[in-house]
Structure formats: C-alpha cells, structure tokens
C-alpha cells in the first residue's frame, strides 16, 4: 500500500508518498513540498498569526490533494517545533482539523530527536558504534546520543535557524552587535545541555542531519546534491569557523549566490551557522558526517517496522 507522510516542519511542509512494506527503505515514490517558514511567522507573543494559519491550511489542502493523486491510502501527519511552541497551538491545530480534517500529531522535542537518531542509525548502521546526532531545524536544535536504535539521551533546544533569525537578526546584512548577542545566547543554551551528554564518553561518529548542515558542508567543499545520496560528505570545524564571519558579513541575496544555498533559506544561514559552530565547539567535535536522512525518514522507518511481515 502507498502511505503518505505529511510533515509540517518549521520551514517546510512536505508530503512524501512511500510504498510501504516491512523492511522497505524509507525513500519516497513521490515528494511534494512547499516552503512556509512557519518559524519566521511567529508574532511578538509567539503565536502564528491568521495569515500564517491561512497559508498552512492552504498548503495542507494542496498536499492532501497530491496524496490522493498519488494514490495514498493513508496519510500520517505530524508537526514539529514551530507549531509545538506557538502560543496559539490549540487554535492552529483546531483550524487545521476543522478546515482540512487532518489531525496533526505534534511531536515533542525529545521524540523529534529520537526519531532523527533512528534515521541516522539506520543510515550508518551498527558498525558506526556510538553516535552523536545533531539536527538544526527551522524551529529547534535536536541532539541525541546512543549505542542502540533508541538513543540514551535526546534533547531539543529552541535554537532553530528560522526561529533565531526572526527573533535575533532583523538586519540584512545582520548587525554585528546582534550577531554577537545571538552567538552568546546560542552558546549559553547549548552549554547547559553539554553536561547531560558528557557522562557517556566520546562518540565513535558525529552525524549531522538537516538542510542547514548540508548547505554548510556544501560551502566547505562537499559534493553537490546532484551527485546523489551515497557520496560521503563532511564538515570540519575549521572550515566552518572560516565561513561564519564571511556569511555574517553578506546580505541574504549574496548568500543565495553561494553554491548549494537556496534563496528560501539564505536568510537563515547565519543563525544556522552560529548554532552549528556553537554545537561543534562546545561538544568538542572536529568533524561531522552528513546524513541525508532525518526526522521524516525516522518516522517512516518506525511506521514500516510496525507493518506486518508479508510472506
């Protein structure tokens, strides 16, 4: 059967159609996406305004139509940080339900981190040993560590690139004073959680997922996305440290001209780079390996695991 997965992320609303059977790879037969950047649409009270909810409802309606067109029998719908942290989350979910019929499941930050970890584990396999997984979304930063498929520790911090850009970096290019203040905020938040992971000892591999990390790796010389999923890509701390001041001095339009940086995401890249740099520095990471799978694949994998075996 064909399963639809509707992911209302903090940047993107994404519908994947997956041919689901137990043991299948979590790769879509079809993918439909729209950039909404909900995390940037929060008002001063932290609520998603009526226009934002209108756009969300319209986008979900389109995605459901796409799911039907592609023959999906069932659609799993879930939402992450931007919806979860909105002060009007009840109204957002209620309007989505009453206007589209979709029951959006709101993942907790810890679930997000756990499912992303599962995807990274399946991607790299058991031979990778102890994994530390970092994911910079639009609304939150997820960190998870473990030896198994279930991580031993998983946390989520409200340090997503979209959220931070909207709240801290209004200028274009950003004011150096704002960049400095954001850097301090990011590092203080990450430093508070480093202790929770320190007791586990050094990971064998550090894995980074998310578009933010993929773009930063591409800037630092990793292969283009056109070269496919199976090329090894990595990002070293030294090359990231060279890029952060350069990115901070550029306008969003200039950043959009860089290799691998999309116009939609170029405004968020400075905040994303500050989070990546802060995390790598505070966790003492020299290099991260890029994993193309993340939360969505984790959700699909978990769902596929629950399907009956076909014999």
């Amino acid at each position, binding site marked *: 059967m064909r399963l639809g997965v509707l992911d209302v992320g903090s940047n993107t609303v994404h519908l994947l159609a997956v041919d689901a059977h137990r043991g299948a790879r979590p790769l879509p037969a079809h993918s439909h996406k729209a950039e909404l950047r909900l995390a940037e649409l929060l008002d001063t*009270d932290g609520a998603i305004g009526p226009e934002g909810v209108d756009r969300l409802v319209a986008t979900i309606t389109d995605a459901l139509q796409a799911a039907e067109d592609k023959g999906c029998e069932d659609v799993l719908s879930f939402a992450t940080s931007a919806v979860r942290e909105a*002060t009007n989350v009840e109204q957002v*979910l209620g309007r989505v339900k*009453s206007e589209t019929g979709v029951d959006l499941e709101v993942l907790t930050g810890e679930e997000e981190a756990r499912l992303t970890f599962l995807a990274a584990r399946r991607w790299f396999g058991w031979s990778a040993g102890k994994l530390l997984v970092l994911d910079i979304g639009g609304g939150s930063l997820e960190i998870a560590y473990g030896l198994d498929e279930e991580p031993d520790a998983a946390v989520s911090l409200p340090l997503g690139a979209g959220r931070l850009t909207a709240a801290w970096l209004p200028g274009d290019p950003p004011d150096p004073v704002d960049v400095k*203040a954001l850097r301090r905020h990011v590092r203080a938040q990450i430093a508070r959680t480093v202790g929770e992971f320190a007791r586990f000892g050094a990971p064998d591999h550090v894995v980074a997922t998310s578009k933010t990390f993929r773009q930063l790796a591409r800037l630092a010389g990793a292969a283009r996305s056109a070269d496919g999923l199976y090329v090894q890509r990595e990002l070293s701390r030294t090359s990231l440290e060279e890029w952060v001041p350069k990115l901070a001095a550029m306008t969003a339009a200039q950043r959009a001209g860089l290799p691998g940086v999309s116009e939609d995401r170029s405004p968020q890249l400075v905040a994303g780079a500050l989070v990546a740099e802060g995390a790598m520095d505070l966790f003492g990471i020299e290099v991260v390996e890029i994993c193309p799978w993340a939360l969505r694949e984790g959700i699909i994998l978990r769902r596929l695991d629950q399907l009956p075996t076909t014999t």
Partner: protein
Amino acid sequence: MVRVPETKVALSTASVYPESTATAFEIAARLGYDGVEIMVWTDPVSQDIEALRRLSDYHQVPVLAIHAPCLLITQRVWSTDPWVKLQRARAAAERLGSAAVVVHPPFRWQRQYVRDFVTGIWRMAGETDVRFAVENMYPWRYRDREMLAYAPDWDVTKDDYRHFTVDLSHTATARTDAMAMIDRMGDRLGHVHLADGKGSAKDEHLVPGRGTQPCAELLERLAANAYDGHVVIEVNTRRAMSAAEREADLAEALAFTRLHLVRPGTRPAAASKTAASKAQASEPASEGASASEGAAAAGGSSAACESRTPGASGAHPS
C-alpha cells in the same frame, strides 16, 4: 472573629511551562501554595500517576486537581478515546486524593463524544466522589471571523452539568461577563481557574490583577458564599526571561489570591498581614513586587494590586 479562608490555593503545573511538572511541585512548595493541579500533557511525568505520587510525597504538596488531557496537543495522551481519558483522569484523582477533574467541552468534530457528553459526564460523576468540573471555553476569533470549536457550547452554563470550572482568562477571551457566568453556575461552581485577560483573541492567562477581569470580586464572592472547591492559579509564564521572573509572577499571583479570598468588609489588618507576610516570605526574587503587594495588603485596597504591568516581560532580545 477573623475568618481564615479554608479555600486552598493551588498552582497549575501548566503555569511553569516550559519548565516541567516536577519543577511545578518544587515551586509550589517553595512559594507556599497549598497544592498543585496537574495538567496532563506531553511531559511524561504528568501522565505517570506513580511519579506524581512520589513528587507529591517528596515535596509534601498535595495534588488537589487533575486537568484531563483534552487539548488538541494532547490528543494521543493516555488514549485517543475521550472517555478513556476521563476514566484515567478519575483513577488518577482517586489515587492521588484530588477533589476535581477538569474537563473541557468536546471539540465540535468529535461528533459521538459531543452527543454523549452531558449524559456521560453525569454518569461518570455518579460513580465517584471526584468532581467532573466542566470548564467554560470561548469562541475562537481571527480577523473578523469566529469559529465555534466547542460543542455543545463554549458557554458551559447553557448545558446541564453537576459541576463547573470557571476560568477568568477564558471569560476575557470570550468577552463575556464573568460575574454573570458565576451567577448562572451558582452552587454548581466546583472549581476555579484564576487568571486574567484583556479580551484579546488570544487566551492570555495573565497574572490576576493585570487584566480586566473581576478577579478580586470573584475571590470575595467565593469567600462570602462558603465556596467549597479550590482556586487554581493557571497563568502563562512562558515569556519570563528567567526563573526568578517566573517565580516572582507566581508569588504575586498567590499573594493576590490570598489577599482577596476573604469576605468583603471582613478584611481586618490581621488577615491582610497574613497575605502580606506570605507575599514577602515567598518572594525573594522581586523586591518591587513584594513591596507593592505589601502596600496593597496594608491598605486593604484592591486597586493597588494593579501595580505590575506585563510590559516588563517583553521578550525581544537586546
């Protein structure tokens, strides 16, 4: 001569969000609340009756009420079946010795639940001493539109329930007359969520005294009418910039409540001093707030309680 109010004042665990349920017990104990109301939601501790019992024992803070997981964000908490959620809430209340289970009216699209709701709540209430106190909600508004999300009605006094919860942030959002609603509830008012609001479309849950709702008047009415339920502080502190700021808000809410939870005309110096000393004892974090509460208590004037403005918690980083 001086009537010491017997009504207990509890802290909703939702009032400390994004801090955890466990933190709410700790803060309630430190500030001198009489107990907590558990908001059962995504925090796993809030769903775990044994964990709650241990927290209650450890902090010596009773669980005075359970808020059933009937928010959209808690659709999958405990069960997806709304009646099973209520049965589990009742079991939690019985196990933890809580007086009340707070229930929201169903969402309009939960059609079968809507149809069975009034009779079902009566049936459940008949099987236990725990009160199922159905809470007033509000119509959802955006731009010029209004959406009726709840059924049979957001105004629960239009239907027949054994017990009601009144919530003064929801009356503000509904732009309805809170005192008139309390009159309609009469002696079926079994539980109170104290918060304030200014009538915006957002359900604000301000610290009592910072909005336009008749918080002080409600408390005086409760004291005068020998109200036998609890008063629960359910305020929003998610914009607090620090733990100290959050605690100052929660201490102020408690001081305000104790100050006004007396019959009108019977607030002698002794009762006021109790409130003032509690305010000061429980408020190490905020000199300004405790001084103003002290002044309010000494003067016996409710007007003086409007001293702190919410502007202080503006969140844009500098």
